């Protein structure tokens, strides 16, 4: 899988900014959806360069997602140990950054 840079952390947040189509792929990657993801920091600001990740949760452009990198990325797919190093494993509905011990 073409990845444009090393992922920032083993598990991190990102925003889907596009789709990627590859007709010739390694065996085992057939049917795997590829999305272009921009990693974001905790304030959801873009950080670093975009990368290509495979999708396991039917995410779409514009959605905030979280990803897992390296060997665990391939474990997110049905096929065992295919050559991927980033996988989208969840769509973020909300991030609560309030401290419950501080009165609102």
């Amino acid at each position, binding site marked *: 899988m073409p990845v444009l840079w090393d992922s*920032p*952390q*083993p*598990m*991190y*947040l990102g925003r889907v900014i596009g789709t990627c189509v590859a007709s010739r792929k390694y065996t085992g990657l057939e049917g795997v959806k590829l999305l272009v993801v921009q*990693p974001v*920091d*905790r304030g959801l600001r873009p*950080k*670093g360069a975009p990368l290509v990740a495979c999708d*396991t*949760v*039917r*995410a779409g452009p514009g959605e905030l997602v*979280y*990803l*897992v*990198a*390296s*060997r*665990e*990325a391939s*474990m*997110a797919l049905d096929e*065992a140990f295919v050559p991927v190093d980033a*996988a989208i*494993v*969840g*769509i*973020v*509905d*909300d*991030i*609560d*950054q*309030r*401290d*419950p*011990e501080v009165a609102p």
Partner: protein
Amino acid sequence: MKLCRVVGTLVSTAKHPAYIGRKVLICQPLSESGAETGDAIVAVDRVQAGIGDTVLVNQEGSGTRQLLGTVDGKLPIRSLIVGVVDEVALG
């Protein structure tokens, strides 16, 4: 393992089956002085940590698989919060 501060809880409905029933937190790595540094981490919580806690984050898949178990030998989780830190003493 990395020293981090929990800065947020993540709510997700559409997720990989391996994440069902697991608490996912946003953690910010800390420097030796306690200042926030580097990129935020998404991590699964094992120790009932909450926002503001200083925690230990294990960023290694094999240990995570041993702790959480696997399905068909697979578990797509890498970062795991394994401890809540009371105190760090340097020097």
